[in-house]
């Protein structure tokens, strides 16, 4: 059965669409909205574009990949949308067909790209931000630190990683994170665990607890909505965690006492840019494959709200040094933006 859901606050029942403004539809990834990460960021960018332009947003939550084809074509067929934003590469296959079938429809695809004139693919350098996250973790695990609700054990440099699904995309997060930590400290030990999906907070918490129990000081997650569980475990165990995609110390203020920092990518900037471009009738400027990396300052590692200014100086220095190294080409981050192969 279909698990589609529509959350649009606007009355889109009879979205006549013929207004002056631009209608934008956004279709979620299988994890759905309210993941405090990925989907919310993409949505957030559209919302912020509203400030400058007259934009109506139709949020379509669809968690079945098999339905993407018909959902996309349904939206495109209505002809009402200036832009349809598709979150995550789960849409790629369906879009390959629909982009060709609906040549007049503008599409934005997040995290992948389809070679068509009417598609703007946006890919962020997940590997770079994860590398910086690794630098943060690698630095902190050797520092004696006990602010917030956690404490580190500097004697054993050990950190953890919790991934959603054990697949190429997330493997890129993992490998880059490990490389970043090893760049700081060659002896660091990294425990790795995968949940098997992006929604099961319970298992995420169990994995993180297991890693903390084994001696990890800091755990980084790449598990979208399920990542919450990592923060819960950090609080329960009195350790630290690193957020992903957005500044999670802001998105989840309950956990700011354990979120040392977050590896962020400004997806919101991307969707905002795309929405603006469409509103200004300038979609052509963004079509094609947009890979956004440190160079565009589209990814970063930010310090958690509660820890700003409290972390040892080495953290800031190392992150800065690593960024520079990546930009200069002195540091080669393993994997690529979309995965490890």
């Amino acid at each position: 059965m279909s698990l589609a859901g529509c959350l649009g606050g606007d009355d889109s029942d009879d979205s006549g669409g013929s207004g002056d403004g631009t209608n934008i539809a956004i279709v979620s990834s299988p994890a759905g909205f309210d993941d405090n990460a990925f989907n919310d960021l993409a949505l957030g960018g559209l919302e912020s574009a509203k400030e400058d332009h007259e934009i109506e947003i139709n949020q379509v939550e669809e968690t079945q990949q098999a339905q993407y084809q018909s959902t996309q074509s349904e939206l495109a067929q209505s002809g009402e949308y200036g832009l349809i934003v598709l979150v995550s590469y789960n849409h790629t296959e369906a879009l390959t067909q629909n982009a060709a079938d609906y040549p007049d429809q503008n599409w934005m695809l997040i995290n992948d790209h389809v070679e068509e004139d009417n598609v703007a693919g946006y890919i962020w350098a997940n590997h770079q931000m994860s590398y910086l996250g690794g630098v943060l973790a690698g630095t902190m695990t050797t520092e004696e630190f006990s602010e917030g609700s956690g404490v580190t054990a500097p004697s054993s440099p050990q950190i953890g990683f919790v991934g959603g699904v054990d697949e190429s995309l997330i493997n890129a997060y993992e490998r880059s994170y490990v490389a970043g930590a090893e760049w700081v400290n060659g002896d660091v030990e990294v425990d790795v665990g995968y949940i098997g999906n992006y929604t099961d907070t319970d298992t995420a918490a169990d994995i993180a607890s297991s890693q903390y129990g084994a001696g990890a000081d800091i755990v980084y997650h790449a598990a979208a909505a399920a990542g919450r569980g990592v923060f819960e475990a950090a609080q329960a165990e009195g350790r630290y965690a690193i957020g992903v995609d957005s500044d999670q110390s802001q998105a989840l203020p309950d956990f700011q006492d354990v979120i040392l920092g977050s590896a962020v990518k400004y997806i919101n900037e991307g969707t905002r840019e795309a929405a603006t471009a469409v509103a200004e009738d300038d979609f052509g400027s963004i079509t094609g494959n947009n890979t956004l990396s440190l160079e565009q300052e589209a990814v970063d590692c930010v310090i958690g709200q509660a820890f700003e200014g409290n972390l040892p100086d080495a953290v800031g220095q190392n992150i800065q040094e690593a960024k520079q190294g990546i930009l200069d080409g002195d540091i080669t981050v393993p994997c690529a933006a979309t995965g490890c192969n």
Partner: protein
Amino acid sequence: MTVLDRAARNRVRLGAGAVIVLLGVILITWLDLPLSDLFTVGFLSRSLQAAAPIALTAIGGLYAEKSGVFNIGVEGFMIFGAVNTAALTWLIGGETAGQGALWMAILASLVVVSVYAVLFAVLVIRYKADQIVAGLAVWFIGLGFGPFMAVLLWGSRNSPGLVSVDNLTVPGLSELPVVGPLLFDASPLVLLTVLVTVGAWVVLYHTRYGYWIQAAGENPEALDTAGVSVARVRYAAVVFSGVMAGLGGAVLLAHAGSFTGTGDTMVNGRGWIGIVAYLFGNYNPIGAAAAALLFGGLDMLQIQFQTVGIDLPNRLVNLFPYLAVIVVLTIWGSTRVPSSVGEPYESEE
């Protein structure tokens, strides 16, 4: 001859048993498992936590089945327990709900679930609904209306972060090695589960109600002719099973701290595992709880494997409990099901 005969007759079971043992031995020797890193105190306490919802559901389910009603809808009741607890926590305490709100929500959600359970019981007992079909319906309804409620409240099938239950820490005792963190710095819901397990065992085997439940499932006529209303006993047992499954869902939520309604929801098959747990535990509450601990432990064990760095394909390892269930059922397929399960009973006409 008789030994060979018996062996021939049971060759499926024997074969399956042998395969399990063999797999275990191969796994341990081949991987050279670091046992002390795998079986840590944290592992045990996480296993207990994972087992609690399964055990509660299993105990409820076995009461219902002992009384003659196969409540195959426990998965659905768990979903209701979880989503109601989340909803009520949120309604009572908002996103900054505290422990008080959580406990109130758990209690209130049990009341709500008991209403559902009464409706289900009436349908199955009074109106002789097909137990299997009605149970499946409860599951479907849970899968539909659980996330529906979440969407209504939070605009998403997942709730925002609410609150998870605090550990009950006994000062001093919690410092004891192993036992301390397991019992004296543990989730009060785990302790509750232990109490429920023991209580359920005592009630079933040492009180008149327990006798009646057993008789209602084995030979309802015998109970009827002894002057005890079979319907009443079954109502009580079915409602109890619904409430226990609801409690299982509530415990799941209280440990997780937020409701997840995507996919098969956060309950994610635990109700089914609960059914298997009591079959495995041969309808004995303590056996069922032990089986729940086994399944919970298996789940946590695969996490330990990952942490220790044994690189098994995670998605396949996750399937292990399901495989175990099948093997267990095949080997223990002869678990004696109460004779009159599934048959509506009417004392007159």
